[in-house]
Each structure stands twice: as structure tokens, then as C-alpha cells.
């Protein structure tokens, strides 16, 4: 303890303390954070709750019975998967008009989202929320997923899902953070500019392969920092910023002792 006491006035002491505090807070949060709830079965009560939530939060644009209004789509027949995707990624309720609805922290919790999905699903048949097994990346084949992804997805989402631009300010988002379930739902329901890849087009197993490929990409590059996996433009930028920057710095240093 004596050694510790001797160092308590060291100028790095606050930094060490701060780091310890952050670690403790993070650790406690990780241990106590609410764990994910199990998917519950749909009941009439859920549908009723969902209807109330819908009328309070969604009906302004989508209409009292989800029939849609001018410029806003009807939700009859979109299915639970579409609602779960839009609401759990925070895209709906939409924050403001813009080129496209942006993902943001979700506004509803698990139960509320499930209730909303159940209500919309009750209006007409549509794609259901995929099961955990359907989106399990360990059961997919990343190699087949790569082949499917680059044929169907990479032209908008970039070769490894780093995202890309669409017209007029729209964009295909990066898929690094997207949950396996949301990736699957997006393929199934085709949100916003994205086309629908139904089960005849890409089978459920193939969808899981794609999920598996995307999850594999999150491990990063074998070659070091992936630089955003954006390809030659970011490589060129770093070549100038780091490589040439360091080398010109070195040249100035070596040439410094002169006139």
C-alpha cells in the first residue's frame, strides 16, 4: 500500500482512476443489463394493446385502420416481419420527412414492438418474424452467402456490406451493426428502396447463408485495420494521410539541419 500511496499524486493518477471507474461502470452494466426476452406467443390481448399503440403513434400517417393515406403505404398484409424490422431498428415511427427513414434508437420496447407486429399481422396475412434458428449464422454457409450477396446485394450495400449511395440522398446502410434477425427481415420485406427477396427468389436457407457471410465479415480483415472496408478511395486517403504524411515529415526532419 505504501507504494500505491506514494503514487497517488502522480499526474497520471486521475487517468488511471477514470479508467477504473469506466471499467467498473461498464462491467456492472454488462452484468445487470436487461437480458433479451423470449418471443412470446400472440394473444388477443397483444393485438388489442398493439391496436391502441398503433392508433396513438402510427395512425396519423398510416390511417386509423392502417389502410394508408396519400403518399403513405397501407400496412394491410405487410406482415409482422415488416413491422418488427421498421420499429425495432427505430425507422418507424419516422422522425422527419427526408430521402429515407433513418435508423435511430427504437421508440418501443420488446413487448410493445411485438404487440404492434401482432396487430398489423392480424389485418392480413404477411411474412412472419423469422425464428432464431432461421437466422442463426453458425448454421449457414458463408461461402454460398458470399456468392449470393455479391449477385443480389453488393451493388448497393458494398462487397462486404459497408454500405453505399443511392440516388437523391438515399442510401443502402452499412450492415456491420444490423442484427441477424433484421438482416433476414429486410430481405423478406424489402424496406424503403430495397427490393423484396421472397422465399422463391432466395430460399430461407440461402437467406441464412447471407446472414452467415455478413456476420463473418465482422471479424475484420486478416491484413490489419480494415479502413472501413471501403476499397481504394479510403486506401488512397490513408496512403496520403499516414504514409506520405510520415515520409514528408521524415524528409523535413532529415533535411532540417541545413540552410
Amino acid at each position: 500500500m505504501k507504494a500505491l500511496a506514494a503514487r497517488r499524486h502522480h499526474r497520471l493518477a486521475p487517468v488511471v482512476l477514470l479508467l477504473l471507474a469506466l471499467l467498473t461502470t461498464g462491467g456492472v452494466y454488462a452484468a445487470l443489463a436487461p437480458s433479451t426476452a423470449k418471443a412470446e406467443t400472440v394473444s388477443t390481448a397483444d393485438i388489442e394493446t398493439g391496436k391502441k399503440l398503433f392508433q396513438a403513434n402510427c395512425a396519423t400517417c398510416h390511417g386509423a385502420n392502417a389502410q394508408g393515406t396519400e403518399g403513405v403505404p397501407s400496412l394491410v398484409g405487410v406482415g409482422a416481419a415488416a413491422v418488427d424490422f421498421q420499429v425495432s431498428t427505430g425507422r418507424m415511427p419516422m422522425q422527419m420527412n427526408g430521402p429515407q427513414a433513418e435508423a435511430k434508437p427504437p421508440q418501443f420496447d420488446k413487448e410493445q414492438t411485438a404487440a404492434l407486429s401482432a396487430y398489423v399481422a392480424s389485418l392480413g396475412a404477411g411474412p412472419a418474424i423469422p425464428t432464431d434458428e432461421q437466422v442463426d449464422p453458425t448454421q449457414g454457409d458463408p461461402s454460398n452467402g458470399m456468392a449470393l450477396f455479391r449477385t443480389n446485394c453488393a451493388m448497393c450495400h458494398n462487397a462486404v456490406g459497408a454500405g453505399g449511395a443511392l440516388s437523391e440522398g438515399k442510401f443502402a446502410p452499412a450492415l456491420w451493426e444490423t442484427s441477424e434477425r433484421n438482416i433476414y427481415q429486410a430481405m423478406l420485406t424489402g424496406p424503403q428502396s430495397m427490393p423484396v427477396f421472397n422465399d422463391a427468389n432466395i430460399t430461407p436457407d440461402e437467406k441464412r447463408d447471407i446472414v452467415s457471410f455478413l456476420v463473418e465479415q465482422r471479424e475484420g480483415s486478416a491484413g490489419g485495420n480494415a479502413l472501413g472496408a471501403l476499397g481504394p478511395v479510403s486506401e488512397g486517403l490513408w496512403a496520403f494521410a499516414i504514409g506520405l504524411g510520415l515520409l514528408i515529415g521524415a524528409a523535413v526532419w532529415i533535411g532540417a539541419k541545413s540552410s
Partner: protein
Amino acid sequence: MSTATQDTKHEAPAKPTTTVGKAADYLDQRTSIGVAVKEFARKVFPDHWSFMLGEIALFSFVVLIISGFFLTMFFEPSMALERYEGEHPASMHGQLMSVAFASTLDMSFEVRGGLLMRQIHHWSALIFMASIVVHMMRVFFTGAFRKPREINWIVGILLMILGLAAGFTGYSLPDDVLSGNGLRITDGVVKSIPLVGSFMSYMIFGGEFPGHHIVPRLFTLHIFVVPGILLALIALHLFLMVLQKHTQYPGGGRTDKNVVGYPAAPVYVAKMTGNFFMVFGVLVLMGATMSINNVWNYGPFDPSPVSAGAQPDWYMLFLEGSLRLMPGQGTEWVIFGYTLPLNVLIPAVVIPGILFTFLIVYPFLEARVTGDDREHHVLDRPRNKPARTGLGVAFLTAFIILALAGSNDLIATHFALSINAITWVFRVLFFVGPVFAYYVTKRICLGLQRKDRELVLHGHESGRIVRFANGEYIEVHTPLDEQERWLRVNYDAPAPLTIAPKTDARGVKRKGYGADKRWQGLSRFFYEDRVSPVTPAEVAAAHSHGEHDELTGSEHQAVEAGAGTSREH
């Protein structure tokens, strides 16, 4: 025998005692290499950090050769198909791919140090081109291309073009989707050339794109033809540099007839060695920590997919941008059944043609409009040639706008902008930007020159305010020392060309008057606006003005004593 007489005249040189000395003496007695070493070691080079930019290019080329040699040990330039049996990366296992692509994966994941070498090689290529461009900027803005170095400037441009060729041929070797997209664009550009295009494309690809020949052909070009010519031209580039002596920055005592600097040995041997290790170290560090061209992200070549964010390496980005900016509608003409695709021809052939032509002809153009055939060994400060500096900045502006246009999708996603709006902004900027950049740069240069004049005539502001007995306030100015003054007054500010009159004494029209008139017009563009250097007479006048008009007798002495400096107004 003369040796006998010599022996009597001179004392025999001391025998070397160290091992190195003995070895050197052994070699020298048999080859007389000491003469060459003595000559070269004593050669004087001027000193400045910016003279090391070309060295960075040279050393990254050395790293390219060393790492490239390693890569050829494992790369198989074949377009035969095979199924990839390797486990890494999982996304490639079992895929059908060319042997070239499979051997690239193999060298990345199975060969010890293979991925490191690949990445060092690719980063070196990017840094090679980047340092060439920065070196060219130094040469251009300081006027180092002037007589007698025009030929070496052309050699330099050839080196840059060969660098582009080396990069392009190497980039396409792994036979991945991204480089295949690049080859497809090349194919389209070649085919856009009227009449011969299709035949040239068939010749290059050995039939319709992609065929089975392009990878082995590019391999031969990449490891043999292009680096061979590069090496020869680098040798010529350096030989001419040594022969013509290196240019030096302006400064006290430096003229077109001397070289002020240090001897090659030991000063530059040490500095160059240090710089080499810095370059090697930085490139290895980049290769070890930053991934580059992960071809397995794109997968083996297949003509159908193109992924978002498909771009070439940075030095080709201006071509990509040029193609992206060109409107597609209404620019493809069909004449008598022949298609004239101006939407490809203009951005991919005409625009780069104009850019490269500008670089090649500029030294000759400037010499012509300046009416200058003297040798130059002292560099210009960029401000002292406002038109040249302006043109250089305009050129860079056009180049950078094109490169940014080639990245328009990434700009759109990263700055939340509309890609359509970005494209239109760049279309306008491509024409307006360089003109604006030229004007602003030229004005800044003229402003800096006027500031220099002001400094030479009146000295530095010292911040000391002195009040005289009569109530007048003045600020004491510190005169420039000789070195500072030399730097600011020793330059040329050429006037536009003067030409002989239209008619001779008898009123007969002179031949060639029209051409002269046009050259004069161009010369006016360069030199109409100019700030002449301060002459000794002007300095003298400014001094006497300060000393006699405003200060008399005791006042002057008081100021002198107080300021410790002479006063100038």
C-alpha cells in the same frame, strides 16, 4: 620508366592498415575505382528537404522490386479454373475461381509472410505514385523544369505514366471482381476509339472480353516490360540530374553558375541511407497494420457483379471521376451505322489527353512566351512566377475535382448528401474551379510579391512607437539583413514579349506577324501583371527618404540610441 622518376619525387603513400583499407586498396590497384569514388564523393549537392521527395519515390520503387520479387515466387498467372480448397477465408471455400485468384489467396493465407508482402507491395505502389506527384509539384512550382532540364522533365512524365501502367497491370493480376470491373472499363474505353477500337480490344484481350489471355499478358508487362523500362528511365533521370547538377533554392551567394551545398560523401550518403530506412520502415509498418486490397472481399472475377464503392486506386481516380461526370444522354452518336461514343471518348481519352499534354508542353510554352533561352540553376520562389503558380494550382484543382467526382458515392454516404447534387456541383466546378483557383492564386502571389517589396524598402515592423518632440509618432522599422534582402530582390519579372511592327520601313507587310501577335497575346496572359523586384536605386531612395526628410540631427540620434536600430520610414 616514369614510375621510377615519380618514386623519387613523391613519398610513397602510406600503406593501409585496417582490413577495409586493405580491401579498398586491393580493389583500387586493380580497377582505379578510387578516381570515380573521389569524383562522386566530392560532388556537391544543395540541401533542402523538398529535394528528398523524389528520393521517396526512388526508395519506394526499391521496396516494390524487393516485395514484387517475393510475390512472383508464389503467383501463378493463369486463368484456368479451379475450386478453392483452402479453409481461409471461409467465404471463399469451395468457390470456382481462376488459378491466378486462388494463388493470390494461397499466398495471402498459407505462405508465411505472404499477406504482409502483398500489402507492403500495394502500399508501396500507392506511395510511389503519390511521391512522384508531390515531387512533380515541387519541380513545377519552383521552375526546375526550365533549361537545361526540359528533357529530364519529360523523362519524369514518362516515369509517371509508366508508374500508372505498372500500377494498372499489377492491380488487375489477382483476377478479382473489382480489378475485373476496372479491366471492363478499360475495354470500353479502348472500344470507344473510332474505327480501330474494337480491333484493339480484341488484340488486347485475345478475343472478346474477358477471354483467357489477359492475366498472363498483364503479368509479363507487369514484372518484365514495365519495370524494365522504368529502371532504364530512372537511371537516365538520375544520370541527367547528376550531369546537369541539382538545382538550388535562391539565397545569398547562390547563382546559376555555382552549387552551394554539401559533398555527397559523407553528408548525403548518410541522409539518403536514413531516408531509405524511413521509407522502408513506414511501408512495412503500413503493410503490417493496415489492410489493403482484400481481394477475397470482392471474390473471384465474374463479369456480372459490380459492388457499390467500386473504384480504382487513387492515381486512376481522376479517370473514374471524369467518366462519372460525363452526361450519358445525347452524347452517343450513331453516324452511318458507326457508333461514336462521345460519352466515353471525351472523359476517358480527351480529358486525360489534355491534362498530360499540358504537362509535356508547359516547359517549352513558358520558355517561348518568356523569350528565355538562358540556363537556370537557381529555383524560383513560386510567388515570383504568379502565372505559372496559378496554372499549376488550376491544374491540381481540376485533377482533385475529378478524383473527388470519382469518389462521389462515398462523399454522398459519409456526408449525408445527394449523389445527384454532388455530381452536378462537380460538373460546374470542373470548369469554374480551375479558373477561380488560377485567379485567386495569381492574386495571392502578386500580393506576396508586393509584401516583399514593402519589406525590402521599409524593413520589418518592430512594434516600437516613438514620439518626437514635435508630437509626431512613428514606428521604428528594422531593416532586412543581407540574406533576407537577397532572397527578395534576386528574381526576374519578365515583361510581355515585344514584337517587330506589322510593316517594315517601306510599308510592306511582314511575314509571320500574325503568329508573333498570337505569341505576344499569350505572353501578356503570363506577364501583363507583374511586380518588379526592388532595385538598388529604390533601396537607396527609401533610405535617404527616411533619414533626411523626416529626421534631423539630435532626433535621429535619439531614435538610434533608443531603438538600437536604424530607422526607416
